[in-house]
């Protein structure tokens, strides 16, 4: 079985957030519940200031701290699904411990105050057990893997678009959106990336393009000191997360 991995080349990424909106529409996340976010960081000062950004999906860690803490095994890493970390919405009790344990902040508890009002959950109220029912809902659904629109009281997260990826031909090295045979199986964020800053493929296959890129361009994993060993690698300048400084303190000259 493949070990699915993603490579994000920050030298090509333009920070446009198409990955974010593609994800939110493919997975029908609530406004602001961005499974795939683009994080911006500002530093320095005119006329030499800098701004950098990095897209942040779930890292689908090889050694996921979120999985270890889940008291019910609702969140699990599935070696038969390329090592993707899922949440089983039939088993999640909503204790949110995994959200505490994830160093990357990529888990969501959508049963929270609306991040924008009016609450879209009231505009498109649920007609079944799920949290809301937008008319544009993706028909794909698999609650055992956290695919679809979640019910109340459970944690949700990026699934590497497993509902697409699962159709990938056995043994394929790369899911490249430019290959018309497999474009429908490519995760939404990778498929739409206009500057082609994202690549998706099998990390267990030394022939894969993702491994080639990681090798050639010195791929790094974010927050590697946590030992979580992400299956998402970053290339290029800016693959680091600045230390946190509260913004209201930042520019106190």
């Amino acid at each position, binding site marked *: 079985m493949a070990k699915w991995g993603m490579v994000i080349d920050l030298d090509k990424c333009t920070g446009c957030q198409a990955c974010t909106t593609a994800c939110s529409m493919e997975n029908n996340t609530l406004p602001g519940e961005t499974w795939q976010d683009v994080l911006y960081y500002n530093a320095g000062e005119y006329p030499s200031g800098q701004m950098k950004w990095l897209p942040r999906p779930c890292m689908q860690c090889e050694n996921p701290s979120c999985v270890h803490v889940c008291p019910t095994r609702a969140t699990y890493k599935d070696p038969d699904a390329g090592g993707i970390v899922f949440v089983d919405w039939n*088993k999640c009790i909503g204790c949110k411990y995994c959200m505490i344990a994830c160093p990357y902040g990529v888990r969501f508890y959508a049963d929270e105050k609306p991040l924008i009002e009016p609450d*879209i959950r009231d505009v498109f109220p649920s007609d079944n057990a799920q949290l809301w029912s937008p008319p544009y809902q993706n*028909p794909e659904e698999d609650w055992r893997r956290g695919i679809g629109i979640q019910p109340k009281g459970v944690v949700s997260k990026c699934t590497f678009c497993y509902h697409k990826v699962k159709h990938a031909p056995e043994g394929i090295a790369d899911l490249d959106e430019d290959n018309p045979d497999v474009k429908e199986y490519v995760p939404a964020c990778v498929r739409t990336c206009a500057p082609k800053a994202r690549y998706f493929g099998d990390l267990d296959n030394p022939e894969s393009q993702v491994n080639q890129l990681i090798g050639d361009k010195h791929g790094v994993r974010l927050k590697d000191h946590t030992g979580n060993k992400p299956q998402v690698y970053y290339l290029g300048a800016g693959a680091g997360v600045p230390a946190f400084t509260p913004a209201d303190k930042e520019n106190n000259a």
Partner: protein
Amino acid sequence: MKLFQTLINRRRFLQSSAAVGASAGAVATGITGLKGFSPVSEARAQAPRGETTITKNVCAQCPARCGIDVYTTDGRVHAIYGTSDNPISNGKLCPKGHLGSYFLYDPDRFKGPMKRTNPNKGRDEDPGFVPISWEEALDTVAERLNDLRRRGESHRFSMFYGRGWGSSDAGIQYPFGELYGTPNAAIGHSSMCADGSKKAKQATDGNSSYSSYDYRNANYLLIIGASFLEAFRPYNNVMQMWGHMRTKSPKTRVTTVDVRMSPTMAASDRALYIKPGTDGAFALAIAHVILTEGLWDREFVGDFTNPNRQFVGGRRIPANSFNEKWVHGLADWWNEELLERTPEWAEEITGINAEDIRRTAIEFGSTRPAVALFERGATGHSNGTYNGMAIHSLNALVGSLFAEGGIGYQVAPSYGALPVEVSDYMDDYAKNGAWKDQPRIDMKGTDRWPMVGNMMQECAINHLNADPYTLDTAMFYYTNPIWSAPNPQVWEEALKNVFIIDTSPFPGETAMYADIVLPDCTYLERTQDVPTYPFEGWPMAELRTPAVEPIHDTKMYGDVIIELGKRIDGPMGDYYRELGSVENYIRHLAAGFADDPGDNGVDGFESWKEKGVWYKKPYKWRQIRGEFYEWDGQRYSRQMSAEEVQEHLLKTPSGKFEVRSGFLEEHAAYIEEELGIPRERAGLVQWVAPVYTGGDGDLHFITPKTPLHAEGRGANIPQQMMVHQPIVGGRNTVYLEVHPETAKARGINNGDRVRISSDIGSIEAECRFVASHRPDTLVLPFEYGHWAQGRWAKGRGPGNSSEITANISDPISGLASYYTGKVKLERA
């Protein structure tokens, strides 16, 4: 944890627990009962579903015209991706594209035609809309139009449009005006959009158009005031090219000049901050260095007759010493303007270090192919046309015009002829009626605005002043000037006594003034032809195919025009009866492809619908080492004569790139009067100081377009609002971006609510510090401040930036000076 891991064979557990999960869910339901705590949670797996169909469409959230695949299952649109074999989108999309389903299912959309019951109009007036039938709606409008025509006042009917797509919507308006009898049938928004760059190009190379670019082969980009990685057309493709340019060999080097920190500035190799409105001075200094360093492209520009001669700063050259090839007026340009435009001179004006200017010039001048591109940042000022001309002249100096890796213009598609001729259906009134003597309401083409393409922003004040006359009835398509025009307060007053027809599917501000609402379909429900905006030059036309039947009782704008036309008295009605419908119209356009099939085999309506696009590569012409060639089907082999170049490419009076513009010289008297430039100098590409608007404010006010801004129609999309302004984390609102020093000098802290004022008004916003902005420049991305437009948009702060933007325009291009305002900042 490792220890524990070995304790339990987790695979076994996963398997057994999954099975238990599936069966025990039902049990849990029985136990819980309390809906709120623990909702019904039967184990759900994939539900049975209908077949998914993919229809071809064209995104409508900006003018780029990305071909999209619309995924529909069980009658519901649920996904939008770029079309793989579409030359613009290539399977990709920008962040706006995916949100298209929100437009279709916007809960605030108009559900059908309506009429107003409250005669009073204003922000706080409820229109009191009541639904009516299409029949009644169209008859009401037609009756009004027929009545105007009978009274000989048909010119008082005006049709305003913004984002026209092709000949089947905006295109239908033109014959409507001719047949009906109004000069105002197609007042476009281009003067509130980007006419400055078109005019700068018209004045220099004779093409009144945006350019096409060959980024794929460019090795240097000099981006000036263009928000390349946020808003430059076609954004999606520009980003694809960015990924290519930044990884190809050799890597395309990029210098960006802008008034603020932006993703484009951040991603460039060199970011230069410029004082707003002074881009022309920067470009002139670049030109100065290119000439003095001897870096100009001799094969395109020409050379001294004596090869030992040089351009030396401050020193004139003899008038006949330079042998001009494709650039007209170079010696004059140098002698009358450029020789003093040193980097040191420009540093004083632009604030950019002379050394940085010199370095940039040497890089730009010594890297081929190199492209200088610009947009509203440089042209949205009183001196915008001259700024644009100065920048565009750099393309001439390095020989990029029509070259590989350079810049060109768009060729129109091979459309078929319509089944009807306008001239066959004109009655005497249409041909000779009183309307013929009336100017357009915007005074385009009169002494007031002799050089402009449109002047929509003038219509409200002209109506209020009854100069040239007042409007009686106005119809709006894809434009909302009552909110988006500079100083829209005037529009709010002006439109109160005009009979308004709005065609937007969404409840915008104009609709709140409407007497009749004739709601359009959203783009996912339309059949519509969409010829490309300037892209790579070769002809291309796309087609929208409805993904679903209209989900509400709406009608495509083109069909509304046709239906209205049928109801106008006289032969005009026959014209539209003959035209039939938009679909029939488009079938006639597509018939043209039979004789000129596209590269993808599209040769008629059905194949066009299937592929979504017709196109023919490559670009027909190319300039190679100073000579122009035409494509013969195999290669660029047929050399063109100077006359052919003038006819197809350099459409100026001289047939060359003009740094002394014949077009401007034709209007030298007007330019002298408006800009104070001595008429003998009017044609020169030159530095003209900007006139800032807004009163005695001490800060520049910049309102850029973000990647999420869907031309005013995205304002009611919560998903968009939550990722709108990543630079400072603007979600739910848009923050004013301000330099911390500037804020602190006014006692303002990060996050405070502030008031921004000009001499025409003030708005409020929350601020966030961006230390990498210019301290003298405030940045407020425009999007919000709506008082209508839907439940999410309405009342969402900050205020509408247009309300503090004076209605002042570049006298040459007519482009509204959106980016030239000065304001004051204080704590609110």
